């Protein structure tokens, strides 16, 4: 069985039918056992419930059953032949922010429910915001109790529209909707005959098929050393292995690595795993790296590529969620901070603002954070941390704070960037080595609005991705022509991947890391052109989702519109066209790493546009994005 594991975070109150939905998923996948069912039937009867309360399946503690509430995160498990599912189910009442954040921290997918009769509530928006803050890559909104609104498509469409508009203000990369009745079983496991108008998959099918493999960061190699294995026996005397979990990138024997903080370099001599040596290690594998040279490395150190290092800094900005009921955030005492495999002392230097999770309002006057509060802080640590922004890497971008007096975990944080740098600029800066830490940005005297206003233009980046021969350049050139020859011309410029490789990117090949760097450079150029008021039309295979996401991130942080356009021409068709003869060469074995043949292509999970095969329509679609 080669199935994957998918972690789901759910949240909500009893009324929206969440427990019924989980109960039904467990029941239909045969994950509830008879004795469990009998036991909750007995309890329901004893309490005088009219129906067996499926919530009792998850409410395990005596106080919960007696008071009919959920206190804590409960884990439930079910499996289909395709996947193993772990649900972290969190209650919807007061403790909810803390529990929801906990459940979402590891989740691949957040499952939200709304009652079709009530529509999108404050609670729904709050759940969506927290999922987005914790960067859960996929979100599914179930419009439940469709049976109570006569399976009315109009009501579903209205809720869908309202939530889509709200979600556009958040950073949710993949958003799905399913109209269901958990009680009646409509669209939960099987397609509902009551809603023939719904063309999507039932919920379980969606959960089985949502693509999660490329949610990981496979570009920025990060290996926090967890434990050094040195056997004392005579035959293993020379063995010195660095054990840990890969949290970013792909490590291969022969790769050059750098150890932080020592900045000593070596190469990977071998990768040991529980089942023997492997040719590559990627997240979330737990492996042991062997190095060619004897360099000093110990727990808390980080192994990375010399050309792609995390930020090393003692001060940084972060979003902090306060968990502890018995204390509130203080800026005058040291906390213990755990980041990857490292503990350091840390002070919260300043609370920048508190975020109201209902209105998104930023309270700049807030004096402290209390339980379930979220705010932006500046943190100073006793020694440097090696981090990425949480946006780029959920592991190297996260930390917890512990109160040394009580040893309680009082808060959890997500790193926004190093202090003193504009948020997000660190993301771009880390790819260059050595990391430049003393660069300050020289602000322009003109604001973007002034510049664009005076020129009568609006900059943006349109990123066309797809296989070689899919028609990216053809579309880009046609759009460029249309924009420039319009009655009111709009400056536009095509950045073509092949052309740029003759100059700007002449020193790059086609290895995964070179492809990543190629995308990064083109992304930066596109952003600068857009900043100047031009519509950058990028035509680039850009096969890896993480690379494209980084480009989106630098645009979002700069506040410049970015549209990912997927030119989804099937491989067979691209190969039939083969305008550059590349496929023929690849099939003849002359090229080994052509995307789609010898090298993978990761399709966008949520592109802003998938183009029509017809060129004229495609051009109109792309221009439609700008309007």
């Amino acid at each position, binding site marked *: 069985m080669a199935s*994957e594991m998918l972690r789901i975070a759910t949240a909500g109150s009893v009324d929206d039918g969440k427990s019924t939905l989980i109960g039904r998923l467990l029941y239909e996948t045969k994950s509830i056992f008879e004795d469990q069912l009998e036991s909750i039937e007995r309890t329901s009867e004893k309490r005088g419930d009219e129906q067996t309360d499926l919530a009792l399946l998850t409410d395990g503690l005596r106080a919960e059953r007696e008071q009919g509430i959920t206190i804590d995160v409960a884990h439930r498990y079910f499996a289909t032949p395709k996947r193993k599912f772990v649900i972290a189910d969190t209650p919807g009442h007061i403790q909810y922010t803390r529990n929801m*954040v906990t459940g979402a921290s590891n989740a691949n997918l957040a499952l939200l429910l709304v009652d079709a009769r009530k529509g999108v509530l404050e609670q729904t928006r709050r759940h969506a915001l927290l999922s987005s803050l914790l960067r859960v890559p996929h979100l599914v909104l179930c419009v439940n109790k469709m049976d109570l609104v006569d399976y009315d498509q109009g009501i579903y469409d209205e809720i869908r529209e309202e939530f889509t508009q709200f979600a556009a203000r958040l950073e949710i990369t993949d958003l799905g909707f399913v109209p269901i009745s958990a009680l009646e079983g409509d669209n939960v496991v099987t397609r509902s005959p009551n809603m023939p108008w719904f063309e999507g998959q039932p919920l379980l099918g969606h959960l089985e098929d949502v693509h999660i493999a490329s949610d990981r960061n496979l570009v920025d190699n990060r290996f926090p050393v967890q434990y050094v*294995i040195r056997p004392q026996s005579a035959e293993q005397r020379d063995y010195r292995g660095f054990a840990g979990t890969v949290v970013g990138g792909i490590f291969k024997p022969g790769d050059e690595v750098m150890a932080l903080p020592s900045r000593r370099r070596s190469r990977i001599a071998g990768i040991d795993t529980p089942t023997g040596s492997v040719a590559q290690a990627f997240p979330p594998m737990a492996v042991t790296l062997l190095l060619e040279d004897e360099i000093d490395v110990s*727990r808390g150190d980080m192994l990375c590529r010399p050309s792609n290092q995390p930020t090393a800094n003692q001060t940084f900005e972060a979003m902090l969620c306060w968990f502890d009921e018995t204390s509130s955030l203080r800026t005058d005492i040291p906390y213990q901070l755990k980041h990857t495999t490292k503990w350091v002392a840390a002070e919260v230097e300043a609370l920048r603002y508190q975020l109201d999770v209902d209105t998104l309002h930023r309270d700049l006057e807030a004096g402290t954070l209390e339980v379930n509060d979220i705010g932006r802080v500046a943190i100073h640590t006793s020694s440097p941390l090696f981090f990425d922004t949480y946006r780029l890497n959920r592991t190297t971008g996260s930390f917890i704070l512990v109160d040394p007096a009580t040893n309680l975990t009082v808060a959890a944080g997500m790193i926004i960037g190093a202090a003193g740098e504009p948020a997000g600029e660190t993301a771009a800066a880390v790819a260059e080595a050595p990391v430049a830490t003393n660069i300050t940005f020289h602000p322009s005297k003109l604001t973007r609005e002034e510049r664009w206003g005076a020129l009568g233009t609006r900059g943006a980046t349109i990123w066309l991705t797809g296989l070689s021969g899919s028609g990216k350049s053809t579309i880009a050139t046609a759009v460029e022509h249309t924009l420039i020859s319009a009655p009111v011309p709009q400056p536009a410029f095509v950045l073509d991947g092949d052309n740029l490789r003759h100059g700007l990117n002449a020193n790059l090949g086609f290895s995964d890391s070179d492809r990543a760097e190629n995308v990064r450079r083109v992304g930066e150029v596109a952003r600068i052109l857009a900043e100047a008021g031009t519509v950058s039309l990028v035509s680039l295979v850009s096969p890896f989702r993480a690379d494209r996401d980084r480009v989106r991130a630098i645009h979002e942080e700069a506040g410049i519109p970015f549209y990912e356009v997927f030119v989804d021409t099937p491989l067979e068709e691209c190969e039939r066209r083969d305008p550059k003869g590349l496929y023929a060469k690849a099939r003849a074995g002359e090229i080994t790493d052509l995307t789609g043949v010898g090298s993978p292509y990761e399709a966008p999970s949520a592109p802003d546009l998938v183009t029509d095969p017809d060129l004229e329509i495609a051009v109109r679609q792309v221009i439609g994005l700008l309007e």
Partner: protein
Amino acid sequence: MRAAGVELSDLATLEAESIHILREVAAEFEHPVMLFSGGKDSVLMLHLARKAFAPAPVPFPIMHVDTGHNFPEVIEFRDRVVAEHGLRLEVASVQERIDSGRIQVGHELESRNRHQTVALLEGIQQNGFDAVFGGGRRDEEKARAKERVFSFRDRFGQWDPKNQRPELWNLYNGRHKKGEHIRVFPISDWTELDVWRYLAQEEVDLPSIYFAHEREVVEHEGLVMAVNEFFPLPDGAEARIEMVRYRTVGDATSTGAVRSTATDYHSVIEETAVARVTERGATRGDDRFSEAAMEDRKKEGYF
């Protein structure tokens, strides 16, 4: 060498997460210990520990809380595993504590389930253990579904379910004061079926009673009990020879068998995949006292 893809199967993911936890404890605690009963969950845990530190030996001892009411096949298995892998074994004996008068029993064959807690806590205290690995899984039982991976215990070994540390990402907080300890559950997210599939995949050796064999049994209060020195034939009952196997391994006085013809991993997995009763419900008299039996025992310091 593995294939060139960058996808990890569910079992490989579970394995990686468990190994991460095992290494984290070995790195951060001074005196960890792993509980070992000879049951399949502790066999799995030990197997993962051997993999986590290979080629070095497992860097902590194992401890068996011995009630004196064991199936002989399990004790034989335990001693064989210890010898084979050069492990250090601590035994926290309930019988010894009964003999010395520190544990009072009504009669010789009453359940020693609760007495285990005394022996366990004394074993932890006397050896100064600060982290104690247990093979508990969240799918086993409702109270366990609320358990953390790193579960804090006060100096009396007690669990406070309403006051647990939040656990995010894979950042575990094992900080504690002297005399307190942390229970660590590295296989929290494995289900019974996962355990069987993985043990089969890895061809791990298990005590023979996990596979179907002929045994003299009697049906008693809904459980299929083996008749032996720990469970004499009740008055008026009739024993029969049947093909049975065990889904869990506990005391011979309270652990029931299930009727089965599954004599190898493959057929056990087939049976497990279609089982309609939980392993504890099918076989454990000790969990049947009340709805909250497990919660109460856990609060007192039970595994």
